[in-house]
């Protein structure tokens, strides 16, 4: 998320790109032709083969190393199947080969000879039967998808499972274990697993053998049929493919660059410099040179002909080495410090730097002297004290659609960019400024976005590469990170080491002393401990945040920045304090609380059957030990008051538009639902046009601002449209006593539908505004973003089972109470919350970026080594929206995207303690850590 214009350079595009240079060879090669087979691919031989794709006989000429996925997408133009990971772990590329699902990123195309291949496009409407498959209907009805990027793979696999299962069992419900095993080769980064279970089970039980060809998510049909086009699917005529040469060194001064060999390479059209010789490279993966060629293989081969000289500098990694006395300083000069990327969402304030330590940032402390004194006294025996140190890993965004852009210069000063984006409007503005273009001459388009979790909000360097190379080459250029690149530099949540001391008791407000050290690589801006302040605002708190600079890639905002790591620490500390006092941890928090949202979820959790029926701690003593934990969190309610929603209505229909995007959060559906609700019509009868920066001001998808920004603006527009149509009935049709009713108007002589009115009305265009909350905001909007006077709140209860023999923590059940006021699109809101929870579970148990400790090279460079939670790992999940509150927020509803992902790590850790008496201080909870932890408490047993 961006808050300042300056933020663009500082926060997303790490220093180097300020110095873009360019070069252009003579254009003798393949200019203006459609991408074709590489002429200089690693193996030059190609093979002819005959096969069947979606029932049609096709003849193909394929390269020895071409994957089936590549051939189907590039040669046949069937783009429903997606490249996710490239090594068979994520399943986004799954197709059926002779009826059996296979990973086509690893299936050599030569194997297709004489076989029958079915892609997602061959399942459903365009299949022989012409009907949607029950699985497709089920995924739509249950909202078993969000961004939709992994959905084609899930559909192809689930359809095969469904058909097998029904053939054997008839209509019956498969077990969760059966479904998890069958779909174990599929990953959904949005975390739609809860609904995927429902969809597959329901379809197998025969619930979706017929039914509507649509679901509550209005773009679901495009996603379950593979019709939805993402940025990586865009291929304009004459498209060139770009690749990037990246630093293999964690710290170096860039010497000379010689790219003459690369530019002379047949098929290469142009190249640009991304770091200028003489400048510093501060992490492995930093961009040095990008070039564009007629296809990917050529670009890759040409890159190997770029010769770069480096002057190596000593590198430091982690939180400790950078603070050693003689550690090399990352940003020695003041100027360089100012250009350090921002890992957070809020503007950077000036801070003290001592070598690689930036901070302390203490602005959000409250009665800091008293906080210290109370903690010191407790340490001396006056009152109960809990003190602990907690450490969380660097987590990677890794959306299944990587950062990707296709740039086309329509003329010398007119640009169109398709980009995987969380902020089309903002990006277009930044591009216009950066390239000196008029705003109306830049269009950023993101019809479908394959996941965005915070790192796609601002213009990113991958876009700069595509735009600049397209300018240099005079042809459209696409650049997309491959999975290793996306994992290396695509964005990360900083690791955090938090030391927390807390004292307090029932009805005695706590005092906190918190020190946090952030590992955001070369980026700065950690201020995680503010979360203690918003969750326990009345407490005495001395809060100190530091950034420890090191030679790792820059972190960036990630869903609930600072939240999961800080709540992991403070919510365990409070839990420990409650245990010391032998009081209910919810009652303890409740006794300190003055906030209505929090009280609503505290009361909900206290009454929840899981909490009510919990057993005494450490009830199990055998190999498997179950425990229950809770954690709470608060989050800001942000809004973009400048948001507009336009509705154009005519006899051709009703079109809703705004310059926002839908990355799976459901903006498109929300707009239709809100307008449909006002007009009393079916949302599917409305057209929603989003995903272009050309429309009226729309919100960025970040900071959980979407629903509360779009909802009121859409309501406003819909009411205006309704009123205008009522006027048409009154004045133009001269009807008496006209009143709006669901679906149209009623008058003394009968009824008219909106459609009938639109037949006779002139074309109507109305614009709704979001505007201010009642009573205004805490601060006036900064860079379009306003802080509401309210906070959202959540409590999560989880039950885990710890296998003390094999060190596994298994999720059994989670219940999550959420206070966000009005819910605009109930099923989609639930999907959002469930997805947040799933990501939180994944963070707590599995995900972990690992760098080589000496070279800073990314080791977890694929989705086998960077482990995401799968269908079998989540347990049962229940989400409840606890109604009420937020009366003075426009529309009475606020965002949920971040809230639900804040608590899982803390909740799970508290549950592990409840089960075993071991308090986890490091995540992820890998088996080695669990076994070591249990050994400390003598809890492990063979």
């Amino acid at each position: 998320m961006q808050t300042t214009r300056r933020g663009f350079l500082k926060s997303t595009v790490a220093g180097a790109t300020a110095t873009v240079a360019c070069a252009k060879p003579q254009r003798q090669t393949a200019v203006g032709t459609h991408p074709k087979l590489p002429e200089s691919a690693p193996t030059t031989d190609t093979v002819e083969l005959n096969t069947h794709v979606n029932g049609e006989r096709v003849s193909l000429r394929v390269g020895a190393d071409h994957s089936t996925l590549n051939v189907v997408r590039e040669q046949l133009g069937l783009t429903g199947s997606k490249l996710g990971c490239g090594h068979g772990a994520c399943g986004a590329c799954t197709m059926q080969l002779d009826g059996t699902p296979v990973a086509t990123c690893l299936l050599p195309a030569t194997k297709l000879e004489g076989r029958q291949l079915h892609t997602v496009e061959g399942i459903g409407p365009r299949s022989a039967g012409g009907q949607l498959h029950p699985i497709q209907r089920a995924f739509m009805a249950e909202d078993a998808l969000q961004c939709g990027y992994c959905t084609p793979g899930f559909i192809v696999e689930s359809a095969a499972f469904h058909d097998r299962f029904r053939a054997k069992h008839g209509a019956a419900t498969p077990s969760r274990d059966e479904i998890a095993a069958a779909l174990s080769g599929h990953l959904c980064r949005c975390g739609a697993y809860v609904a995927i279970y429902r969809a597959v089970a329901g379809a197998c039980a025969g619930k979706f053998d017929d039914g509507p060809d649509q679901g509550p998510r209005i773009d679901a049909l495009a996603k379950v049929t593979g019709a939805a086009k993402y940025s990586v699917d865009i291929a304009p005529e004459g498209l060139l493919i770009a690749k990037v040469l990246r630093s293999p060194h964690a710290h170096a001064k860039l010497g000379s660059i010689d790219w003459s060999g690369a530019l002379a390479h047949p098929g290469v059209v142009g190249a640009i410099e991304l770091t200028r010789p003489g400048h510093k490279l501060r992490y492995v993966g930093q961009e040095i040179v990008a070039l564009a060629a007629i296809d990917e293989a050529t670009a890759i081969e040409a890159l190997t002909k770029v010769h770069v000289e480096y002057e190596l500098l000593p590198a430091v990694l982690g939180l400790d080495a950078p603070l050693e006395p003689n550690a090399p300083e990352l940003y020695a000069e003041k100027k360089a410090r100012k250009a350090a990327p921002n890992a957070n969402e809020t503007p950077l304030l000036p801070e003290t730097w001592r070598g690689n330590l930036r901070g302390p940032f203490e602005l959000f402390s409250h009665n800091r002297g008293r906080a210290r004194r109370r903690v010191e006294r407790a340490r001396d025996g006056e009152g109960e004290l809990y003190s602990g140190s907690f450490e969380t890993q660097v987590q990677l965004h890794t959306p299944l659609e990587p950062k990707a852009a296709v740039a086309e210069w329509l003329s010398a000063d007119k640009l169109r960019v398709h980009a995987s984006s969380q902020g089309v409007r903002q990006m277009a503005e930044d591009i216009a400024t950066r390239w000196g273009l008029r705003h109306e001459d830049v269009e950023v388009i993101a019809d479908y976005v394959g996941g965005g979790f915070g790192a796609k909000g601002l213009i990113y360097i991958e876009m700069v590469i595509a735009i600049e190379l397209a300018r240099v080459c005079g042809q459209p250029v696409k650049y997309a990170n491959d999975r290793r690149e996306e994992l290396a530099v695509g964005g990360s949540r900083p690791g955090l080491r938090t030391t927390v001391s807390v004292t307090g008791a029932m009805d005695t407000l706590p005092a906190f002393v918190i020190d946090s050290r952030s590992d955001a690589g070369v980026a700065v801006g950690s201020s995680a401990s503010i979360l203690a302040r918003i969750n326990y605002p009345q407490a005495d708190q001395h809060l100190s945040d530091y950034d420890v600079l090191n030679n790792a890639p820059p972190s960036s905002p990630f869903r609930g920045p600072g939240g999961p790591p800080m709540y992991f620490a403070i919510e365990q500390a409070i839990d420990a304090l409650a245990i010391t006092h032998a009081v209910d941890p919810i009652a303890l928090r409740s006794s300190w609380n003055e906030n209505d949202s929090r009280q609503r979820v505290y009361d909900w959790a206290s009454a929840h059957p899981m909490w009510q029926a919990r057993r005494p701690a450490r009830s199990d003593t055998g190999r498997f030990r179950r425990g229950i934990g809770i954690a709470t969190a608060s989050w800001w309610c942000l809004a973009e008051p400048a948001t507009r929603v336009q509705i154009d209505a005519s006899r051709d229909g009703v079109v809703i538009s705004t310059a926002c995007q839908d990355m799976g959060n459901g903006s498109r559906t929300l707009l239709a639902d809100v307008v449909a609700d006002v007009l009393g019509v079916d949302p599917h009868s409305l057209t929603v046009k989003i995903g272009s920066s050309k429309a009226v001001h729309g919100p960025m998808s970040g900071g959980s601002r979407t629903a509360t920004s779009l909802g009121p603006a859409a309501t406003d527009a819909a009411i205006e449209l309704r009123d205008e149509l009522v006027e048409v009935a009154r004045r133009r049709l001269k009807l008496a006593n006209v009143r709006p009713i669901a679906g149209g108007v009623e008058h003394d002589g009968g009824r008219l539908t909106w459609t009938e009115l639109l037949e006779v009305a002139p074309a109507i265009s109305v614009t709704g505004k979001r505007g201010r909350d009642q009573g205004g905001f805490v601060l006036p909007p900064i860079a379009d973003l306003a802080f509401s006077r309210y906070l959202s709140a959540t409590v999560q209860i989880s039950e885990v089972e710890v296998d003390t023999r094999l060190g596994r923590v298994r999720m059994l059940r989670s219940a999550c109470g959420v206070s966000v006021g009005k819910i605009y699109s109930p099923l989609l809101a639930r999907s959002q919350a469930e997805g947040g929870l799933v990501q939180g579970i994944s963070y707590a148990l599995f995900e972990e970026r690992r760098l080589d400790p000496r070279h800073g090279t990314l080791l977890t460079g694929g989705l086998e080594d960077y482990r995401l939670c799968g269908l079998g790992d989540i347990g049962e999940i229940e989400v409840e929206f606890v109604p009420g509150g937020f009366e003075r927020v426009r529309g009475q509803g606020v965002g949920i995207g971040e809230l639900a992902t804040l608590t899982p790590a803390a909740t799970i850790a508290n549950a592990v303690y409840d089960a075993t008496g071991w308090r986890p201080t490091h995540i992820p909870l890998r088996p080695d850590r669990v076994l070591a932890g249990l050994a400390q408490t003598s809890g492990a047993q063979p």
Partner: protein
Amino acid sequence: MIVFPKTVDEAMALAVELGGSYRAGGTDLQERRQHLAVLGQHTLAPIVDLRDVPGLDSVACDDRGAWIGAMTTLADLAAHRVLRERWPGVAEACEALANPQIRAVASIGGNLMQAPRCWYYRHPDYQCLRKGGTSCFAREGDHLFHVCFDTAPCVAPHPSTVALALVAYEAEVELIQPATPEPTRAPIQAVLGADAVAEHAIITTIRLGAPVANERSAYVRASNRAHAEWALAEVTVRLVLDQSGAIVFVRVAAGGVAPTPLRLSAVEDALVGVVPEPLALAKAAALARADAKPLAMTGYKLELLEGAVLEALERALQTSPSPSAITTPSQDGA
């Protein structure tokens, strides 16, 4: 360059002549060749694609044993009725590894011959021992998922789950080698180590010995996620109980912990003749650590290994035995 030989002999002749790489299912090779391309190794070896070689993808079984064609897919083996009944540990291993979309195309021969899964080996920037370099970066760097039996210069554990099962079944492989015109047979362990197989040799068949009557088996995979994760440690156990309930035959093999799968003979020895009671099983399982030599970060694997052995023994004892109408073996072989 790519060629499609029609026979095994032709395949080997082409491989020798071109210096080619064999391609069976291709699931491992496909990914590795992409990395090589990034490295700028554009003289990638020609591919000798075995797609058109007939007769390598079927299974034949009788009372003397099973003959598994090296190109048989793991999914087919997992589903093979006779294999599941008589050599259950092999079928179970084939079903437990990777994920369904991989098992559907990956072959058993390719699974045995796949390259290490080490994150340095798979990284284009590292020219490690196994890629012709001079050092093992994992040994000096991050080896959290590597061996705890440090017995070879490269510390990557053998990645094949099938190999582990085949070790437990004392399988043999038939292979054709450029130097010797006649097919040769070798015990499974002999073909698993780094460079254990002569260049351009082809494994054609995996041979399982006669099925064992009343066999109980179990496969246990210690991993963090529920599914589709490389094993931290994995164990296959086979055992037969006599009428008194004592163990008369037992095989225990472990993977994920050593450069090649291990037969845990100390565990086996402690179990023969023993009535499987909890204490006896636990004592035997503890012997899985015998001769271990963990790296700095892999000590935890010993605990997992011991736990997995115990788990596999317990589970095997709970399974129903294979048919009894087969010759009963003795401990020193069938």
